[in-house]
């Protein structure tokens, strides 16, 4: 059985539908004629911190100590600005001042129509579909202040390769993503572990800010994020969404 996915390829400035089907348990396309992939989204890309139960548990008593003082109540968000966005198979540059990067494998909810103060019940009506995101950071343990310098570097947000329509993702509450570095399995992240599942997250975020058509809201990253260094290939894989692969290389001074 095949489905249509929406992608932007080969330096074109418009999107195209590609036929995709499951091969070896993962959604794939025939990419023989595809030379390059661009991010398949136009809007603002938002990330969600600490939306994985195991990531919250891993913080343990730190959540009640200074500087945090108590566990978060509202969703904690951040923005991956436009300079960070990159496509499938792009290279992620390792800045000179660090030897390793954190891989923040996530699923991006692609907004289908303007969403403001929506309820959990109607949340899925506002979703165009889903895509894979690799939210790259320079490792930082302290999350008291916004991590702009750690998260907003050029090319630090590979996204894609395509958007799978909401209608083709029958159980969004039960997705699994796996991260491989140079072929070795490093991390598994399950949407069943979310503190705020997708509908609840959309309800709580749109309570205070509008999401526009084309915006992306990442559901969060898992815990124990894999680290990568120059020369590593990162592969984020989901049976329903496909494979997002990127290589890390040292930035030339």
């Amino acid at each position, binding site marked *: 059985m095949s489905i249509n996915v929406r992608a932007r390829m080969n330096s074109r400035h418009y999107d195209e539908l590609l036929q995709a089907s499951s091969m070896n348990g993962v959604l794939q396309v025939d990419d023989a004629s595809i030379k390059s992939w661009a991010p398949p989204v136009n809007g603002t890309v938002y990330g969600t911190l600490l939306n994985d139960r195991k990531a919250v548990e891993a913080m343990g008593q730190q959540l009640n100590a200074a500087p945090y003082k108590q566990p978060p109540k509202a969703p*904690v*968000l951040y923005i991956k600005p436009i*300079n960070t966005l990159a496509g499938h198979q792009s290279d992620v540059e390792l800045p000179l001042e660090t030897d390793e990067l954190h891989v923040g494998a996530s699923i991006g909810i692609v907004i289908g129509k303007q969403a403001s103060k929506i309820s959990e019940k109607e949340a899925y009506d506002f979703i165009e579909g889903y895509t894979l995101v690799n939210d790259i950071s320079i490792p930082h343990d302290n999350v008291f202040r916004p991590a*702009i310098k750690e998260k907003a*570097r050029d090319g630090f947000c590979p996204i894609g390769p395509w958007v799978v329509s909401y209608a083709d993702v029958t159980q969004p509450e039960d997705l699994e993503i796996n991260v491989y570095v140079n072929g070795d399995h490093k991390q598994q992240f399950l949407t069943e572990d979310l503190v705020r599942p997708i509908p609840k997250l959309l309800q709580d975020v749109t309570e*205070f*800010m509008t999401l526009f058509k084309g915006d992306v809201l990442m559901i969060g990253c898992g815990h124990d994020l894999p680290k990568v260094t120059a020369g590593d290939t990162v592969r984020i894989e989901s049976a329903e969404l496909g494979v997002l692969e990127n290589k890390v290389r040292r930035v030339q001074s």
Partner: protein
Amino acid sequence: MKSARVAYEGDIFHAALMEDRLKLSNGKTVTEEEVVWLPPIQTKTCFALGLNYMDHASELEFQAPEEPLVFLKGPNTFIGHRGRTKRPQDVTHMHYECELAVVIGKQTKNVRQSEAYDYVAGYTIANDYAFRDYLENYYRPNLRVKNRDHSTPLGPWFVDASDITDPMNLKLRTFVNGEKVQEGSTKDMIFGIPHLIEYLSGFMTLNPGDLILTGTPKGTVDTKVGDEVITEIEGLGQLKNTIE
């Protein structure tokens, strides 16, 4: 040169100031009240500075930061001159922040302080409202405090960089219902414009249209429903907003 973006009779126009009237890009002249004022810049990436004036940092009982405290804002938060900003019912402390907004004009990376002004297209005024009840200690200040819908008035004008001789020596003042409540000068910024441009471009590419909101001085007090808040910067005009 000052220019605005306004909506009038079903279309969007650029507008210039002609005596006390607006001249639209279709040649018509209209009054300030006849148009809907839009933010003069449609930004992709907006940086904002926390605690960038010593007196404001002390007012909030914070040490001055050793490195710029930067956060980002999304497009949902901007609103034009003469707009309305909602005060949520459960909020007990919502305050304005009069800030000089710097508009980047050319793409740049790794620019030095001495050349930073070459990359500035111009300036406008931002009122970067904060809703202190929603502060939590994760990526603080977070988007629920600083990125609410319509809570960052911007404008009225985009003012060309060449019109502002010394952007690091401009008076800022805020009036609530006509009473002066905040006064300061951009010369008291901890990290000035050239420093901020060098800092940001040192780790990421800045693009034309990017905005840097440079922080606010001392004098932030709670505002109530119905209050008319005017944020003013010398040479840039007065940005009006009403709390609803």
